[in-house]
């Protein structure tokens, strides 16, 4: 599958890679490290059109959402957005999602590889609710503008609204280059920025217009490699790495961010409540390599020759100059400051558990 910006990427000389069935730019000629640094220092533009957009509408939409996802949306005002999850009955994570509360509907932004599964699962749970579930991915285009200069870049294109007054996880509508667009102050990099729903028909023209408007602010297009290292420094989970159907939001350390345990009765709640009482056996931790080496997804974490966990993500972190990683570790070992071993090609290299996130942007204002 390809996004609406695929042709642009090819013409720009992007290096393409398969990502869950999507042919996506992993990097442009600039290269992953420089693209990463640019987002931390200035701004980067990402094609995230592969992510799914499902619109839930109808008189029963809110009741339906309360049943199928973890965040109590009765407290989510129109014009706000929030992180949430779809769980199975056992509390396993079917997907992590973003919910936009629109004036007459709700928009779920879901992971690309999970979109068909999510839609089928939502439909199978819709019986008895007066709702419609519509895939809005074909008629919109989703891009992300991220970095400390993101607001200044967007302000040039959207003079009607004072973007400094738009709070975090707020949604505003603004015509960008004359095309009606929906902006949400959110992102996946740890920097301030926007995820933007553009009309599908002039997606490429708008992408180019944003890049032109941002040129004086050093804006560049960025690929999936930079997106991954940026989100990893911010310790944001990636579905398939940190979370999947065999993991739950409590063990993943995401309950506070994504789950309202008091209140609505959602699928998976009973299982989570039981897990909260018994305490998870493994929990998510962050670690820093004390001996150099690149931890990778699936590498064992060991203490005294015994496996006590596994790496979910590892990287060389351009912002900190350190080799860092995340992973699940048995609860007694999951303590900040604790020394653990990361098994890299049969050699055990020393790492130390450290506080997450690894990087906090100084640019939140």
């Amino acid at each position, binding site marked *: 599958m390809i996004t609406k910006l695929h042709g642009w990427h090819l013409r720009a000389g992007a290096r393409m890679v398969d990502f869950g069935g999507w042919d996506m730019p992993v990097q442009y000629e600039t290269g992953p490290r420089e693209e990463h640094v640019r987002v931390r220092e200035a701004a980067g533009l990402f094609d995230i059109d592969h992510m799914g957009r499902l619109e839930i509408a109808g008189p029963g939409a809110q009741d339906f959402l309360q049943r199928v996802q973890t965040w109590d949306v009765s407290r989510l005002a129109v014009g706000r957005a929030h992180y949430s999850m779809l769980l199975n009955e056992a509390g396993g994570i079917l997907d992590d999602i973003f919910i936009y509360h629109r004036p007459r509907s709700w928009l779920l932004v879901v992971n690309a590889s999970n979109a068909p599964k999510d839609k089928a699962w939502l439909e199978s749970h819709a019986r008895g609710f007066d709702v419609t579930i519509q895939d809005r991915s074909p008629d919109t285009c989703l891009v992300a503008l991220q970095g400390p200069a993101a607001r200044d870049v967007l302000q040039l294109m959207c003079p009607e609204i004072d973007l400094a007054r738009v709070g975090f996880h707020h949604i505003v509508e603004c015509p960008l280059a004359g095309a009606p667009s929906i902006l949400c102050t959110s992102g996946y990099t740890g920097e301030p920025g926007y995820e933007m729903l553009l009309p599908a028909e002039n997606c490429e023209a708008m992408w180019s217009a944003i890049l032109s408007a941002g040129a004086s602010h050093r804006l560049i297009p960025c690929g999936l490699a930079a997106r991954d290292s940026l989100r990893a420094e911010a310790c944001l989970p990636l579905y398939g790495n940190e979370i999947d159907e065999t993991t739950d939001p409590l063990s993943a350390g995401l309950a506070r961010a994504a789950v309202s345990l008091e209140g609505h009765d959602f699928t998976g709640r009973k299982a989570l409540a039981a897990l909260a009482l018994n305490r998870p056996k493994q929990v998510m931790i962050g670690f820093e390599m004390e001996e150099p080496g690149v931890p990778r997804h699936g590498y064992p974490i060991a203490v005294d020759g015994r496996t006590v966990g596994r790496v979910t993500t590892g990287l060389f972190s351009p912002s900190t100059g350190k*080799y860092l990683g995340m992973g699940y570790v048995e609860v007694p070992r999951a303590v900040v400051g604790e020394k653990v071993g990361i098994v890299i090609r049969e050699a055990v290299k020393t790492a130390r558990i450290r506080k997450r996130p690894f990087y906090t942007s100084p640019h939140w204002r």
Partner: protein
Amino acid sequence: MEYRFDDKVRYSKTHEWVRVEGGVAVVGISDYAQNKLSDVVFVELPAAGKELRAGTACMVIESVKAAEEVFAPVSGAVVARNEKLEKAPELVNKDPFGDGWLVKVTLSDPRETDSLMDAAAYRKLVETL
């Protein structure tokens, strides 16, 4: 994509190069290889004294994407390691034929370099990829 080709080295099919200086062979990876790897973030060099066998995996280069094995283009014992790569692995990207060299080995069979490609032959190979 335009790649650089150094005329003074000989190349393996797996994109390593060798430059013989006296009885010692300097080993690195080609510009094509570093480009395909993307940003190099870690190089796991073999220990000094280790005997490398031509055609076998002898070290690992980690890029942002993955861990890739480097195959010894010639046989011999490691006499020097590029220690600069520990702090600056990106030298492999920036200067693959110069400061981004990997190891130096004493050639156990100098004739092995005869089976490696010259720059013209290697360029032809890269053009087919």
